[in-house]
Each structure stands twice: as C-alpha cells, then as structure tokens.
C-alpha cells in the first residue's frame, strides 16, 4: 500500500470558475432582481454554506457520521446571544468564544464515542442534538430562555477610526503593493505610476473637502493597482494610462463630487447606524458603526466568512491533517497501520468542524437577533447533512449546489404559484431531469437509451397534448417514473424494454385520452388546493431518496482524491497482486 500515491486534489471548479463565482457573489446585491427579501435569503444561504463547509470537515473529509451538527451551530448562537444580552459583549468579539465553546463541547462529547461503528455514531449524534434541544427548551441553568429562546441579540458593531490616517495608511498600502507588482520596471516609471495612483486617490477629497469620496478613492486606488499589475512589462505607456485615468477621474469628481459625496454619506447612514464620534488616543477619532436590519452588510460579512472558511478548508485539505483524514476515511485500519493516531485525527475533525459551526451560529444570532431551540432541531441537522451529502460528500462545489437545493430553492418556491409550477414549467423540468438521469445511466447504448427515453417522454406529454388538459402532466410524471422503473427492471433481466415501453405508452395514452377528462378535472382541483409549503418536507424527502438512487455519490461528487490502496483493497479475498511468473 503506497501511501505516497495520493494525487493532489484536482479542483472541481478551476480557478477561473472560483473567480467568476466570487465576482458574481460580490456583485449579487447590485443585480436588478435582488430585493431585500432575496438578499435576506442570500444571507441565510451564506450561513448554511458555512455550516455545510464545517460539516464537510467531519463527514466529507474524515468520513464520520454527524447528524447533530445543529447542536453545535446552536451552541455558538446561544453563546453569542447570552454574552450579548447579559454581558453586552459585542457579537463580533464573541466569535472566538462561540467557536471555542462549540469546539470544546465537541471534544468532550465525541471523545468517548468516536470509536463506535458508523451508524452508532450517527445515532449518538442525533441523541446529542436532541439533548441540546431539550436542555434549551428546559431553560437549563436559567440561561436559555426556554422554548421561546432569547430575544435581542445585538447586531454587529465596530469602531471605525475615521480620520486622515486611515486614508493615508490605505494609500501607503496600495502603493507598497503597487511597488512590489511593478518592481521589475525602471524606478522612474514606478514613481510616475505611483504618483498617478496617489493623485487619483487624494486629489478629489482634498480639493472638494468631501471625506466620503475616499470610499470611491479606494476603488480608484485598487483599479490603478489592477492596471499596473495586468502587464508584465510596466512602462511609460501604462504609467501614462494611469495618469489619464487619474486626471479624468479627478475632473469628474471636481464637477460632481459634492453630490456624490452626499450620496455616499447618505448611503452609509441608511445602511449603518452611525454613532457620535469618540475621541481616542493620539488624536484619533472613532466612529461607532453598527449594522442595521439591512441585509447587504450582513451579506458581505457572511461572504467574508465564507471566503475565510474556503481558504482554510483548502489549506486543511492539503495539510498533514487533511491527508490523515483521507486515510482514515478510506481505510481506518490501514491508516492506523501507517502510524496515524486515528482517534486524535477524528477528534480534530469533530472539534474543528463543530467550532466552525459555532461561528456560523454567531452569525445567525446577530442576523436574526432571536435564538430559539426550534432553530437548531433535528430537521436543521438533517438539512445541513443533506447539503453536504446531496451535493457530494467532500466536494466544495457540491456544498454550494446543496445549499441552493436545500435552502434557496424552498424559499424561492414560495413565489411559485402551484398551478403554474405543476401545469407550466414544472413538468418539463421534471421530465428533463428524468430523461437526463436516464440517458446518463445508460450511457453505453445511446440509441437504445434514446428510444426508451422517447417512449417515456411520449407517455408524459401525449395525453396532455391530445386532451389539452395541462393537469394530466401530473399523471404523466407518474407514467414517466413507472416507465423508468420498468425499463430498468427489464434491462436488468436482459429483456429488450423498447417494445414494452412503446406499447405501454400507447395504451396509457389511449386510456387517458378516453378517460382523461374526469381525471384531469380532479387533478386540477387538487392542484388548485395545493399549498407547496405543506409539502416542502415531503418534497425534500422525495428528492433525497431520488437523488440517492440516481446518484449515490451526490450531485457533484468529489473526484476521488486518487487514493487507491491498490486493487487489493477492492478485490479483497485475501489475494494479493504479487504473482510468481511462469518461466
């Protein structure tokens, strides 16, 4: 067993993909269709991404069951709420405390049970999650507020040192980075470019006396840096371009700067609660700034944490500990044989994952200001678990997709009129999914698969087309699923399913065309009385079953990180590959 044969992880999304995603994420609040409520959903989804990533350490990396993750998430949230409400600790400061408490709790709880078989571990984590919830409901130690939970967690607040030194420091930082970026160019070119950035940066606020313009200036400084760094050979031409930009910018600012400054100032005051300045040491002034209800600052706060989490996870994945997790996940006995302290490695996964869930809990508490036991019950644990597993255990893009499916989609489905969903676009989406999965699973014989799929599609669409009763799509969905099932059963038995499928489709169509009217009416009534929120859990459950049957490894499974303990592990049977050769 060659442990060094582990290939490095091939990132599933290329760097470009990540970059595009980041740009999209940064720009999201400015997209036209994003209103406050959708931004709120985005914030919530962001928190779940962090949760999914944290659980991924435990489930995806170390391969351990954890169906009580919500307890650690809740522990973090309650810690923050209690510290904030009772002791006035600013929420951002409580992040390390929340992480620490969740992490320590994870160590205490998981240490005695880590040696248990997978499914026992699973049930113990469920039990722990329930104990947490019951303790919270019972107002343990009189600090959890019972089943209503705790009200009034503070929003994030921070002191903004708002005076000259800050722009100055920012400028210096930008210039240093700039100097490093263009360090191969002649000194005079460097100086010229730097002066351009400084000009674009400082001139407008200096001339107009409008300090808020520094916000725009930071953008300009970064833009200048980008221009400078884009070229390998930074020359007079690029420096000239910088000057051009700087001058144009300065001119625009001089003309419209006053209004712009006002708008920026207003924007900041609308979004944040800006307190009275506090005099600090060394002549500095601090402006207390607190979040308001507005989701956008939260969005960026959560985004920052997602990025921190992602970077941390990618680093962990490639670290010694990350490799140790991999071995433990793939083959615990073999890992132990190579000298890995498996208990400690697993404990580390539990502790790190849980601590990070605690951080997500802090973000939750400060966003929603209320923590209550119901928000951290078993269903939450399942949702987080599904985010990890449905997307593909161990896979980071999988978590993003999982969050979309488990958190974002249900929220967006609120908007969907059931009639439209079921009679309009929904059926085709479902049919497309069925056929895509179907053809995918029969890749070897594309023509045959297409013929079979065609019959299924016909059974799906034809009755509606013939009778002009959209509600018959519902019967069509059933027909399509039955068709897929029949096809797979017949294929398994080496019977050619094509005549059966087509025959069945034709009979079905004939029957529905004859008797479709009445059925269509009752189905239609059913659809109109259908309340999608009633069925959310059920649909979620059906999706879970379906997904597992069709893609047991998840939607975007982690590409095997190249660990093959040689064929032996799979062939088993005690046979090894060392073969004496016949002469």
């Amino acid at each position, binding site marked *: 067993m060659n442990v060094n044969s582990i290939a490095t992880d091939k990132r599933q999304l290329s760097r470009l993909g990540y970059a595009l995603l980041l740009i999209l994420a940064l720009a999201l609040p400015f997209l036209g269709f994003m209103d406050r409520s959708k931004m709120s959903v985005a914030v919530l989804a962001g928190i779940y991404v962090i949760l999914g990533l944290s659980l991924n350490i435990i489930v995806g990396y170390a391969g351990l069951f954890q169906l009580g993750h919500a307890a650690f998430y809740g522990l973090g949230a309650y810690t923050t709420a209690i510290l904030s409400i009772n002791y006035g600790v600013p929420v951002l400061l409580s992040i390390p405390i929340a992480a620490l408490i969740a992490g320590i709790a994870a160590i205490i709880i998981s240490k005695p049970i880590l040696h248990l078989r997978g499914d026992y571990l699973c049930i113990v984590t469920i039990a722990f999650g329930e104990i947490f919830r019951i303790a919270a409901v019972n107002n343990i130690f009189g600090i959890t507020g019972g089943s209503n939970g705790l009200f009034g967690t503070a929003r994030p607040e921070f002191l903004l040192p708002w005076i000259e030194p800050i722009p100055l420091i920012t400028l210096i930082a930008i210039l240093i980075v700039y100097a490093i970026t263009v360090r191969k160019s002649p000194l005079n070119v460097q100086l010229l470019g730097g002066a351009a950035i400084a000009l674009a940066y400082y001139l407008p606020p200096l001339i107009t006396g409008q300090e808020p313009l520094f916000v725009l200036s930071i953008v300009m400084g970064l833009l200048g840096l980008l221009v400078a760094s884009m070229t390998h050979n930074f020359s007079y031409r690029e420096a000239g371009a910088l000057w051009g930009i700087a001058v144009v910018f300065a001119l625009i600012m001089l003309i419209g700067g006053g209004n712009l400054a006002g708008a920026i100032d207003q924007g900041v005051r609308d979004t944040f609660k800006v307190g009275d300045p506090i005099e600090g040491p060394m002549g500095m002034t601090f402006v207390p700034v607190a979040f308001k209800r507005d989701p956008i600052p939260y969005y960026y706060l959560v985004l920052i944490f997602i990025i921190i989490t992602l970077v941390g996870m990618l680093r962990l994945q490639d670290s010694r500990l990350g490799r140790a997790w991999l071995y433990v996940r793939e083959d615990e006995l073999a890992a132990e044989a190579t000298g890995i302290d498996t208990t400690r490695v697993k404990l580390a996964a539990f502790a790190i994952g849980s601590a990070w869930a605690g951080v997500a809990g802090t973000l939750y508490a400060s966003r929603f200001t209320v923590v209550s036991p119901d928000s951290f019950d078993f269903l939450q644990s399942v949702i987080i678990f599904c985010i990890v597993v449905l997307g593909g255990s161990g896979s980071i893009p999988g978590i993003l997709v999982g969050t979309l499916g488990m958190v974002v989609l249900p929220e967006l489905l609120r908007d969907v009129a059931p009639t439209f969903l079921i009679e309009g676009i929904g059926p085709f989406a479902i049919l497309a999914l069925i056929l895509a999965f179907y053809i995918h699973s029969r890749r070897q014989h594309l023509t045959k698969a297409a013929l079979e799929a065609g019959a299924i599609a016909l059974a799906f669409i034809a009755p509606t087309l013939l009778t002009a009763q959209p509600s018959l799509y519902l019967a069509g969905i059933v027909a399509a699923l039955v068709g897929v099932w029949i096809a797979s059963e017949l294929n398994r038995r*080496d019977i050619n399913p094509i005549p059966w499928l087509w025959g069945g489709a034709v009979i079905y169509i004939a029957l529905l065309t004859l008797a479709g009217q009445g059925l269509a009416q009752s189905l239609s009534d059913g659809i109109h009385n259908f309340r999608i929120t009633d069925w959310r859990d059920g649909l979620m459950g059906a999706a879970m079953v379906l997904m597992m049957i069709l893609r047991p490894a998840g939607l975007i499974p982690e590409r095997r990180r190249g660990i093959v303990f040689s*064929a*032996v592990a*799979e*062939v088993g*049977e*005690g*046979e*090894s*590959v*060392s*073969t*004496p*050769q*016949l*002469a």
Partner: protein
Amino acid sequence: MALLELQDIHTYYGHVHALKGISLQVEEGQIVALIGANGAGKTTTLRTISGLLRPRSGSIIFDGNPIHRMPAHRIVHLGLTHAPEGRQVFPTLTVQENLNMGAYTLGNDKEAIEENRRRVFKLFPRLEERKNQLGGTLSGGEQQMLSIGRALMSRPKLLMLDEPSLGLAPMLVKAIFETIREINRQGVTVLLVEQNARAALKLADYAYVLETGTIALEGPAGELLRDERVRKAYLGET
C-alpha cells in the same frame, strides 16, 4: 458434454479487470483443481461460477443450463454448491442449524434432509458430537468440516471448495483431502481451489493453473505435477 463449462469469462471488480477470459471444463465424476498464486483469480472464478459475481461477458454452462446470468440462490437449486474460503460458517447458528441451511433448497422434505444429515455425520463424526454447539465455537478444522458438510447437505452434483486447507494443521489437511476423495468417490464432482498446489495436484484428475486472471496452463494433474515450470513456480522447487 462436460458438467461445467466456462467460455471466455471476463469479470470485473469495479474497474479492476479480474478475470480476463477464463475457459475451463469440469467433467462429471472428476476432481478438478484450480491452482495459482494469491490474486491470480481463483476465488474470483469460483464466485463467478456460483453467481456471487456476474461476468461481464462469456458463458457458463452447468449441466446443460446457462447459469452466467442466474442469481446465486437459483444455481444452488441446480446442484452446484460452493463452500467458500475461510470456513465461513454461521457463527451464531448451531451446527445443526448450519447444516439445515445447507439443505435449504430441499424445502421441508424432512426425510431427504435427515438422510443427507446422516451421510454428512458419517463423513464427519465430529460434527454429530457437536451438533448443538454454535458454529463460531468450533475449532478451525471442525469449522472446515462444517463448511464442507453444509455444502453437501443439498446433495450437489458439483461441489466447489475454496482453499479447504487454509490455516489448518498438516495432520488435518491430510484428513480433509482424504474426505474430499471420499466425497468424490460417492459420486460428487469436485472443483477445488488450492494454494497448496502439490496436495491439490496429487488429489485431482485434471488441473488448471491461473495467473493474473488468465489460464496459463492446463492438463491432467499428473502431467502438471511433473511440469518443469509448475514445479519451479508453485511447488517451491528450483
């Protein structure tokens, strides 16, 4: 027509191509041995025949029936049993219950079961002494006896044995091989997988040598025993 015939069998474990075109025949009344090193595909061959693994291509004909697509439990009904490697008796079932499971295909035919049991107890008197003990509490040799006895309970036409000598003391190995000969004499065809090539070749009528999923050599056992290459690679001679 041979009792068992494999034609160009290919079997995969996931992406691992384990059997790369195995063809072999077992004539009625014979003892046929499959020998080869660890990982050559001996066990895989047996598991493919008995239906635990499904070959990706090729055909297996047993007693005139194609069985390569048949589920394992139906193959047993045709009279082909397989005593798996490593004495896999049911540890928490008693000896008697283990044997009854061997006769599962006979249904509720009490008489036939009783008769088969008597035959097995005759072959392995030790089992009768311990018939109410749990399978897991038997010694290694006894478990091997139980495993073979269990496979005989359905009165098979062909018995496949996987490494019956594995991990047994030399004395016991000898006794087991004696019994196999006795079983064969009673009219049961035997397909034997063995690492102990010498003993297997001595016992068998015909033998196949497997190497990395293909048949490298075949011939009457006596001839193989004298074959230079076999002696070098498998009999530890130089």
